[in-house]
């Protein structure tokens, strides 16, 4: 067997500087080892902080920021990368090992044409001459299924879509004909409908060129489609390592089992969905008369139920939330809430109308003032809407903290001192503090790891049972919709494509877009990608 990469006893450390304390050495990765054969793909999977990117980068003998590789060996063929000097490492990077970053939009220089950037490293290393490299780039564009491969390289990064940019980056990595490519979450930032195309293109290109790859992701269903082996990581240590089939079908460890079975909690939909507690009537909205984002959208939601709004980015689902809150008054149509028509603009709404509709954002980081403690963040709606102060207010804040399963010890923490899941929980408590009747959830779990997201969803479901609050849940994740929704609205390019009870919307016959959307959600099944590509009726919108 021809081993291309072999990592043994890898140990990676970093120095952290907590404010007001002496610097500490933190071990990020310990005792990790694996081998990778020519033409094979190893999937590295784990939640954020598991060390998967750090391990991936160590294959290029690179440590981000203050990260140091302090032990073990990284053998590329028979050369230990960790013993090489700087010139030796430079010779390897971009020639024998290449890297594909998560955010292609941030990784490309906006001032240069794509073609020049794709061949830059190859020409620099003297592997190919400029005309030869251009020819190879055109060939790779074709392999990766990019449109008009002859002229694609003449475009600038802003002239192509996110999915195309990610494929261009893969072409850049493949251009010098490397032995190993490190893919660092290449599809995480993409819509599901775009992700499937990029995934297929990457898989095809790997098969075509016979390159070995490390594929880093947090989505087990994605990695199942592309890799031969999977390594599950947690807290910088290996949890389980095996063939893809073994990990998916017969996981040995509890943690892996949790990852495989995540989001299979199903919630029965409500029987009677005819009530119109919140009713959106023929809403057309946009940022100017020529730029309309929503076209004639009508929806309704009964009390105590959940309406999921799904669609890809740019479909207008977040704009819908802005219209309901009053941040963006609609051009036409109206919002009726609990029998009364809400004033279109935020400033015309009464304090009580504002109180009854609360919002939870996607990024809890930016949704909370970093200079306020948890006590202030949750306490403000209490004093603002109900005039609470002093002991009474503190008691209520503690009560809310208990409700979100956190507890009083978090009272005086700043948001920066909380984990991602805890931040989102505090944001939920802030919304709850107002005793709302409707909470608009704008992708509250899409920035979180699967198991943490699961916890948030369970919490939201429990709160709905306790307080009979209604949710308008914006998401692009069909699995979440299946788990929590009563009714579903599918949006595409600002129009409502499908709306009704979950059981109806998610069962055939489908319109073309819903069909594409449903089929694009990766399933925990080997061979799913090929099956779907052969079955679908419509090309994805981000193409």
């Amino acid at each position, binding site marked *: 067997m021809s081993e291309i990469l072999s990592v043994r006893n890898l140990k990676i450390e970093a120095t952290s500087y907590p*404010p007001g304390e002496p610097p500490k050495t933190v071990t990020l990765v310990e005792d990790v080892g694996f081998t990778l054969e020519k033409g094979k793909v190893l999937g590295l999977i784990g939640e954020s902080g598991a060390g998967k990117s750090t391990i991936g980068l160590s294959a290029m003998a690179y440590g981000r920021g203050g990260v140091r590789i302090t032990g073990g060996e990284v053998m590329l063929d028979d050369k230990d990368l960790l013993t090489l000097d700087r010139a030796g490492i430079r010779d390897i990077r971009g020639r024998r090992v290449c890297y594909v970053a998560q955010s292609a939009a941030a990784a490309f220089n906006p001032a240069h044409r794509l073609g020049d950037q794709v061949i830059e490293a190859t020409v620099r290393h003297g592997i190919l001459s400029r005309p030869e490299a251009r020819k190879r780039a055109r060939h790779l564009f074709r392999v990766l299924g990019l449109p008009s491969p002859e002229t694609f390289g003449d475009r600038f990064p802003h002239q192509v879509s996110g999915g195309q940019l990610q494929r261009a980056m893969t072409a850049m990595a493949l251009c010098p004909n490397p032995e190993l490519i490190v893919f660092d979450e290449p599809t995480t930032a993409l819509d599901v409908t775009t992700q499937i195309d990029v995934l297929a293109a990457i898989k095809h290109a790997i098969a075509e060129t016979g390159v070995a790859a490390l594929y880093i992701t947090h989505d087990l269903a994605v990695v199942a489609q592309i890799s031969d082996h999977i390594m599950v990581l947690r807290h910088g240590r290996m949890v389980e390592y095996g063939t893809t089939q073994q990990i998916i079908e017969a996981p040995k460890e509890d943690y892996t089992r949790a990852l495989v079975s995540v989001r299979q909690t199903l919630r029965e939909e409500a029987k009677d969905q005819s009530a119109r507690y919140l009713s959106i009537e023929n809403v057309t909205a946009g940022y100017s008369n020529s730029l309309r984002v929503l076209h004639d959208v009508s929806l309704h939601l009964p009390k105590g139920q959940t309406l999921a709004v799904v669609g890809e980015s740019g479909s207008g689902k977040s704009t819908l939330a802005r219209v309901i809150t*009053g941040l963006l008054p609609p051009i036409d149509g109206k919002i009726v809430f609990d029998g009364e028509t809400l004033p279109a603009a935020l400033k015309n709404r009464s*304090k009580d109308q504002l109180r009854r509709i609360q*919002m939870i954002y996607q990024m809890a980081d930016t949704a909370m*003032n970093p200079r306020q403690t948890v006590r202030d963040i949750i306490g*403000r709606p209490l004093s603002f809407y109900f005039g609470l102060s002093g002991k009474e207010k503190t008691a209520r804040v503690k009560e809310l903290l208990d409700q979100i399963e956190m507890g009083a010890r978090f009272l005086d923490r700043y948001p920066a001192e909380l984990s991602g899941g805890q931040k989102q929980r505090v944001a939920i408590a802030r919304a709850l503090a107002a005793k709302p009747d409707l909470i608009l959830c704008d992708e509250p779990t899409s920035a979180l790891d699967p198991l943490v997201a699961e916890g948030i969803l369970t919490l939201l479901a429990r709160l709905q049972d306790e307080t009979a609050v209604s949710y308008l849940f914006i998401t692009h994740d069909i699995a979440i919709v299946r788990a929590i929704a009563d009714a579903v609205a599918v949006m595409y390019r600002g129009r409502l494509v499908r709306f009704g009870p979950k059981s109806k919307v998610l069962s055939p016959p489908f319109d073309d877009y819903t069909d594409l959307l449903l089929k694009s959600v990766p399933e925990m099944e080997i061979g799913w990608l090929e099956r779907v590509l052969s079955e679908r009726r419509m090309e994805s919108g981000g193409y």
Partner: protein
Amino acid sequence: MPFKTQPRKTFSLNAIPLSAMIGLAGIAIALICALFAPWLAPHGETEVVGPIWLPMSSEYLLGTDNLGRDLLSRLIFGARTTIFVALAATVISFSLGMLLSFTAAVTGGFVDQGLSRLNDLMMAIPTLIFALVVLAVLPQNIWILIIVMAILDSTRVFRIGRAVALDVAVMEFVEAARLRGEGSVWIIFREILPNTLSPLLAEFGLRFAFSILFLSTLSFLGLGIQPPAADWGGMVKDNKDGIIFGISAALIPGTAIATLAICVNLVVDWLMKRTSSLKGGRGDV
């Protein structure tokens, strides 16, 4: 201090870095001089004690000036006017500039345009000429001097304040506050101000040093502090001719200005680090 420190962490002297200690000590000395000038100074502020430009000696520790007055005494009395005028002007210019710029950034639209263009108009006129014209017309009074300096300086504060506030005003927590129904006052003082303190503090240190220099310039041109009252800038002017004859008297008040400016900035740097470290990782640790 106008910002909230972390309540859980008890304040201890050990937590202050050496650079900030030096800065604090320097400011303390200057303030003590300013407050207790009549008791500390060996001679009177305007008293002629001997021949001009005497070198340093045990009787006149820093020598005498161009009229034969004791330099040390004038330096101590000068600390009063210099620090008071510069500090008052800087504080007023910051209050004014920040209030207007934050209002412009939060309100937007017509208010923002109006204030910003008015600010551009003010900045288009050279500061010194503007100050000369205004001060020549208005009566000679220390408060008028302070207000004129403050208003002229606040145009710069407005620029920076609006830029940093705009960055914060588009964040989701500000949107969340608006959705809650909060008024502009809460949004400005509770949501935006605490998140813009770091750049504004840095600017404060710089502006304070500039206003000492600006006061000196005005005094030099005869429109600032009126003789025979002492201020550091005016003392540099009085003694500048001595430099030609190798007499260092002008350098002494000059050094005092530089030292005070450095001390203020050392303290400001430390405050900046303290405030930015709360953001979690965004501070320069």
